[in-house]
């Protein structure tokens, strides 16, 4: 591994230095959320974890994550015991910030380990020797991903750890002897976002399952999250908004109730004025349908590559059709897709719009002025460096008619990002001040949705035609 420059270790050191400098940066309410969870898991008996509600930020992640917080709490008390008090709402002493920020960096080492240990063996090509270079580039791109920088190290979350588990399980699944561990690890990994029986055992015993599930699956919340994640529903909402203007001319019926409560599409329930309402059941069935579609392919052709593809497609399906999807969930697609992006030029073609759209869609998470330069410049440098590197490393495809159109689409798409960012971050403020705040968000997510859906269509085509 070390024969490639720069090595993963070198990148990790430089990135760590940069992340340390970001300690004083903006942190979202997620910081307080996690501090509260630290306090809950540290100071209360397990039975009360999912009932405690002193803070509005109740524990709503699965049990393994709660255990993870409990472990962190064991260290946290040496830094500042005051952060472990449930009543200490909004507490953020210097020690608390330093501890929580460094806990993100420390747990992210698992991701580093997973990449360092396993990715060089990832068979992107038949010849293992020639696949090492691309695999190395992929490893660097994942570790340095702007997604982690924005979501984990500024906004504040523990995705680095989570995706470390995911990648570890994916790579362990490759060799027959370690497949068992892989399943276990994957369950752990999914457990943090999804379901795992073992973790819920004690809560089942105590009869707390309904309470737990109501916390984990917030169907009472709206279809779209506060900042519309760039999925099908973002495009759907966008079309609805456009139809409000167009509908009178086409004589379409308009739901007046929705018009008055055009909550500016931001918080809570999204109601549609022209298009039919979307129910949780619809989103669930759609997600399930597309996931099963990719699993059928995996069944008929159980190779490692199909496995990676199926994971990516399951991520796509949940992200695109899920209920109340967070924009951060795009990493569920980007990270597994990265592992396949260098398979050949066609895959890279589908990856490019996703890389741009996925990361641009994270921008609204950081809306404060000082972080503007960090998020944009970091993302642009990452895109420039890795898309160029990938381009140089990918193996050419002999005959490919789709390439021309797709490449043009990608090119136009990427260029549009520049005026879009300029508008959403600067021009809108100058033109409208604080009015129409939903506009930049809507443009941003609709734009990103086009990229994500476009890459999804491209990837599906590659996956099912392979």
């Amino acid at each position, binding site marked *: 591994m070390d024969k490639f*420059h*720069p*090595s993963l270790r*070198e*990148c990790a*050191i*430089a990135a760590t*230095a*940069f992340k*340390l*400098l*970001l*300690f*004083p*940066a903006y942190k979202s309410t997620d910081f307080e959320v996690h501090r509260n969870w630290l306090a809950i898991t540290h100071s209360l008996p397990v039975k009360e974890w999912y009932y405690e509600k002193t803070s509005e930020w109740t524990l709503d992640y699965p049990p393994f994550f709660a255990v993870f917080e409990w472990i962190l709490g064991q260290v946290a008390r040496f830094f500042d015991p005051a952060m472990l008090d449930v009543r200490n709402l909004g507490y953020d002493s210097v020690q608390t910030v330093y501890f929580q920020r460094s806990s993100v960096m420390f747990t992210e080492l698992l991701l580093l380990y997973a990449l360092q240990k396993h990715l060089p063996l990832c068979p992107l090509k038949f010849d293992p020797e020639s696949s090492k270079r691309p695999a190395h580039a992929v490893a660097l791109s994942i570790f340095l991903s702007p997604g982690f920088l924005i979501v984990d190290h500024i906004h504040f979350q523990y995705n680095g750890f989570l995706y470390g588990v995911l990648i570890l399980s994916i790579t362990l699944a490759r060799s027959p002897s370690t497949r068992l561990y892989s399943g276990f690890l994957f369950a752990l990994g999914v457990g943090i976002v999804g379901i795992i029986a073992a973790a819920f055992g004690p809560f089942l015993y105590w009869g707390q399952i309904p309470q737990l599930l109501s916390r984990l699956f917030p169907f009472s919340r709206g279809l779209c999250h506060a900042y519309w994640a760039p999925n099908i529903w973002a495009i759907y909402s966008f079309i609805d908004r456009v139809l409000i203007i167009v509908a009178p001319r086409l004589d379409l019926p308009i739901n007046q109730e929705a018009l008055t409560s055009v909550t500016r599409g931001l918080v809570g329930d999204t109601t549609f004025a022209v298009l039919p309402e979307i129910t949780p059941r619809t989103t669930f069935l759609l997600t399930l349908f597309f996931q099963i579609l990719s699993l059928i392919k995996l069944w008929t052709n159980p190779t490692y590559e199909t496995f990676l593809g199926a994971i990516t497609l399951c991520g796509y399906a949940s992200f695109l059709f899920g209920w109340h999807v967070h924009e951060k969930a795009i990493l569920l697609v980007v990270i597994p897709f990265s592992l396949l992006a260098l398979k050949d030029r066609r895959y890279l073609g589908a990856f490019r719009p996703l890389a741009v759209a996925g990361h641009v869609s994270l921008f609204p998470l950081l809306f404060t*002025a*000082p972080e503007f*330069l*960090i998020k944009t*410049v*970091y993302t*642009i*440098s990452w895109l*420039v*460096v890795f898309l*160029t*590197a990938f381009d*140089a490393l990918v193996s050419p495809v002999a005959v490919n008619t789709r390439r021309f159109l797709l490449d043009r689409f990608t090119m136009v798409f990427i260029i549009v990002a520049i005026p879009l960012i300029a508008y959403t971050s600067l021009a809108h403020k100058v033109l409208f001040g604080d009015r129409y705040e939903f506009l930049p968000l809507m443009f941003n997510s609709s734009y990103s949705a086009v990229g994500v859906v476009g890459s999804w269509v491209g990837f599906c085509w590659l996956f099912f035609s392979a």
Partner: protein
Amino acid sequence: MSSPQHGAYKPRTKKPKATRSVSFSLPALPFPLASFLHPLRSASSQWLVLPVLLMVSILFRWAVGLGPYSGMAAPPMHGDFEAQRHWMEVTTNLPAKEWYWHDLEWWGLDYPPLTAYHSWLLGVIGGVINPDWFVLFASRGLDDVALKTFMRATVLASEFLIYVPAVVIFVRAFGRQADLSKYDKGVALAAILMQPALMIIDHGHFQYNSVMLGLTLLAVDCFITEHIYWGSFFFVLSISFKQMALYYAPIIFAYLLGLCVHPNTNIPRLVLLGATVIVSFGLVFAPLVVFGGKEQIAQCLFRVFPFARGLWEDKVANFWCAANILIKFRERFDSGMLQKASLIATFVAILPPCSILFFNPQKRLLPLGLAACAWGFFMFSFQVHEKSVLLPLVPTTLVLAGNLDKNTVSWVSWMNNVAMFSMWPLLRRDGLQLQYTVLTLLYAWLMGTFEHLPKHWFGKLVHVGSYVSILVTHFAEAFLLKGLLQEYPDLWVVANVEISFGCFTVAWIWVLWRLWKESRKGRKKPKRE
């Protein structure tokens, strides 16, 4: 394998172009910074080097800027941040004739006119964004987050308009005459742009040193590309931005004078140069005189040269302050006497580099010459600040653009590390401990400090000795001997001054010796240009 001498001034008469950029099999230079640029060697990706380096520079500068600044939330006087903001307030609200007179007790303007114009421009721009930031009197001591962001942005913009282009041009021009490969030039550019001391003072502590340094560097760029009149013009601008640039004035004077005498006397050139300097100063002072009247010049000069102040203010690692534990200068001698002593000592200190440059006015000696001259001033002149170490440090780092062998890299990075350490008391006061630690360690690691020591045993001894004593001082200050502090509150500062002074003396001698050696090298062989 690469020889340790790659990129040195070795005569390459047979091969006009260095081969490193062509060969793909060669390993990276043996320090991590070079490793990062390694994938960008190939011709197809070389265009990436500059944009990526610039973006990384922006990121680190801005990230440092997220931290506190000098005088943040520190009433009653605040600090340099307030000084700079106050000058924007003064210049945008008052007529030019009051600029150098307005309430001098509260951060009165004491920089030359170009700083005043710069402040005025920034104040006008800032006033459009938020007029509250620069309301006369009412805005004093403002600690607004948005204001901080704006001010940080002005530093970044000023640096990227002046200093950064100057560095890029310098590395290209200087690297070309030293026969560096494109890859080596990229590494040198990165090493100069990532210099921690300038970064933390401008973007952490808060100042606009990069403008002054950038203007001097532009002057050097002009000298290297044989535009000596433009060079003199830019150097005058540099002095007119911050009088500190006078540290460089003798050496630039010696160089230009040398050009008028070697290889044969050229009186018209001398006259033209003199005229350029006078006209440039005239241009700089013209707006002030036109809008404020003639008497502004005298007041400006009076404000700019504070001979009324003492030999030093805060403790600084120069000769006077370091020797003060043995001889209490300020108690034993009166201020006029000390002024004379420091004048003479400085003159003696800068005489050797100035004579070398006068007798060998060669472009490739410029960075070392500037560094040697500035070290002389730093060591012996009057009213030196700890931040003034940037003046010798920046040209010392520029040496990398001509030579990237392990020995040079290890010396230059050592000087950067020690310079960071010497500013620790200041940075700690500003609350920049985190930024100090991260930037120092990062740069030390990037430059391979932990892996390479100089070739000579004496160098090894000095480097290891200084690193150990720096670590011990930091460790002791952080964890041990808290009781001692009550008795000697200045203990750590004095330790810092003594260690830094010892190191700076070695650094100064190294620069002088290097300058001497380089100047001899040119003698033996016919000139390449």
